[in-house]
């Protein structure tokens, strides 16, 4: 009896103390799970399908001053949603707006070229990759976030693999861009493993969640009308936006440990530019087709290589170097400006920069953002959808620059002294 009384009194006192703690209620289940709806057009359901909280976690303005010519600025990191990448099974099919153009299906099946001395078993490659330039953040925020130099311009399709001779013919790709051959050496394969580990580390430090630990959210609700209030409950990603807007803590990348770790991981990843982490497939679009969601990352890595190269050589200003990947710190030479520093203006860089891009699945499921080259189990667990017409990813691009001094795309370039 005495012990019971003691416990009762203690509990009541404890209860009074804990009343002062804030209680966060989140509804992480969705009414959409009650019905198995067909995935619908992600672009027409922007609020539900985009990981808006990346704006909060990746945009940072510091008081570190710098200058571009004579114009002072502040070191800033930002992120921009500027592109949609699709991986489709049928040529000229666009699941991001559910459009199917008449295309010859036979042409899609192409045997892989084998060497004259035999070699690999011919594979049938029947997927295609599309890059759709769509400056969503630039269109939405327009003048409000002018100093962030968000992408602007009209929606365009800079790359369609149906019209690229090198996409399904590895030998053509190798002949067109010979230094990509580095990945076919034993050291290339070993460095690919190192790249995979660096990618995993980078993702962990940034706080991106693995798909096998996040609730599955469909890219649409059961009804056709867009209900933004319900969307809050339907999309657990956007709950973080609410929480962050209300001043709650989020994973900041400003802590010393975080910055130091990212330096190491990102410089490893970008030093091995020819490998795409766990996917190890920077050229062509050949994968075994068993994991389309994870393989879409490798597809984008290949497309990114092509578009980076094309942007450097032709007047296509889509893919430029906009991050520093810790060059100065890793070279140990703080006082010498790097010849390819992009703190004052975007620079041509003919190779893909994996740490510059973040992929976020939007069709057939809505997924968490992921670093390019993250291991498949973290990217695609539970994200398959039998009968889906392809995979659509939103592509975010990072930018590091001196705000207020930076030459936004379209302006004359200004250089460091």
């Amino acid at each position, binding site marked *: 009896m005495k012990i019971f009384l*003691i416990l009762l*009194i*203690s509990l009541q*006192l*404890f209860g*009074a*103390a804990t009343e*002062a*703690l804030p209680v966060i209620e989140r509804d992480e289940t969705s009414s959409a799970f009650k019905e198995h709806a067909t995935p619908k*057009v992600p672009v027409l359901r*922007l*609020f539900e399908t*985009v990981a*808006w909280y990346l*704006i*909060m976690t990746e945009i940072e303005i510091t008081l570190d001053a710098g200058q571009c010519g004579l114009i002072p600025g502040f070191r800033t990191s930002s992120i921009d949603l500027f592109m949609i990448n699709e991986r489709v099974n049928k040529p000229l099919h666009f699941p991001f*707006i559910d*459009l199917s*153009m008449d*295309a010859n299906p*036979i*042409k899609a099946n192409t045997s892989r*070229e*084998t*060497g*004259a*001395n035999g070699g690999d078993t011919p594979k049938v490659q029947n997927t295609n990759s599309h890059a759709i330039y769509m400056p*969503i953040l630039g*269109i*939405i*925020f327009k003048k409000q976030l002018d100093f962030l130099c968000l992408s602007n311009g*009209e*929606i365009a*399709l800079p790359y369609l693999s149906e*019209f690229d*001779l090198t996409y399904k013919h590895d*030998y*053509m790709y*190798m*002949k*067109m861009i*010979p*230094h990509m051959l580095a990945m076919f050496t034993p050291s290339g394969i070993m460095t690919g493993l190192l790249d995979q580990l660096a990618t995993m580390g980078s993702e962990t430090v940034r706080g991106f969640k693995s798909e096998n630990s996040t609730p599955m959210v469909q890219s649409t609700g059961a009804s056709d009308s867009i209900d933004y209030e319900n969307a809050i409950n339907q999309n657990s990603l956007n709950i973080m*936006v609410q929480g962050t*807007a209300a001043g709650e803590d989020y994973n900041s990348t400003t802590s010393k440990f975080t910055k130091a770790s990212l330096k190491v991981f990102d*410089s490893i990843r970008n*030093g091995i530019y020819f490998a795409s982490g766990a996917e190890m497939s920077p050229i062509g679009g050949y994968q075994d087709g068993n994991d389309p969601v994870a393989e879409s990352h490798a597809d984008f890595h290949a497309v990114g290589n092509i578009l980076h190269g*094309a942007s450097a050589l*032709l007047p296509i200003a889509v893919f430029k170097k906009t991050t520093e*990947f810790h*060059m100065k710190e*890793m*070279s140990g030479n703080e006082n010498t400006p790097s*010849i*390819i*520093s992009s703190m004052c203006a975007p620079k*041509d*860089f*003919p190779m893909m*920069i994996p740490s510059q891009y973040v992929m976020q699945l939007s069709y057939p499921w809505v997924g968490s953002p992921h670093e390019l080259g993250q291991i498949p189990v973290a990217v695609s667990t539970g994200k398959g959808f039998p009968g889906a017409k392809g995979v659509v990813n939103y592509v975010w691009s990072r930018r590091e620059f001196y705000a207020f001094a930076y030459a936004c795309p379209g302006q004359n370039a200004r250089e460091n002294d």
Partner: protein
Amino acid sequence: MKNLLILMLVTVCYAETFRQYTSPRGYVDFGVHGKTYDITEQSIYDVIIKGAKEFEKEYPKERLKKIVESEVGKRAIFNSKNICKDDSIKNWETDYYTYEMDYSNPLGRVIFKKGDRVVAPKVDVLRQVCFVDGANLISAKNQIDFMQNATKGQCVFAVINRDVRDLWKMYPSYEFYPSNKMLFDRFGVKCAPSILSMKDTKIKKDYFSLEKFKEGVK
């Protein structure tokens, strides 16, 4: 009894400490003094919702479809005035790759300078790239038939001056791609119709006069 009292005392102290730590008492509320200003800055959450709604209004599905169809039409054709006037069968030559710009590693060290020349990779290639001028459909047909025969069915066609989708329909089992500037420049192909062959580190370019593929001329 003594032990019981000690235990109760410890428990109460712990709970009280915890409560004070999380919800202090005895503070004085000084109220609000001075002029206050309403927050005019919109919550970013509201900005995002408003922006997303406006985006969907500005770009309805029909408008997006038209944009995509127009862009596909642009990508499906490559216009070029590089037309061959004479036949010219070249010898095998070493395939050099010339760097068009400085290639740097992420640390800023220049690995290849603009103008550096390297021998292209040694790759055995069974297929050949057949450049076709599609301005005239009948001439294009003649070119395609000729080149397929000449290469024993190993052509991958790079087309100029014609939407490749027209040729996809005419020849469902052949591969047609729109040509591009990089393809011409990389291998030094001067004009179409032509056949580009690759073997080891060597390439061979055969040019054919367009005149011979005109209607009725074989």
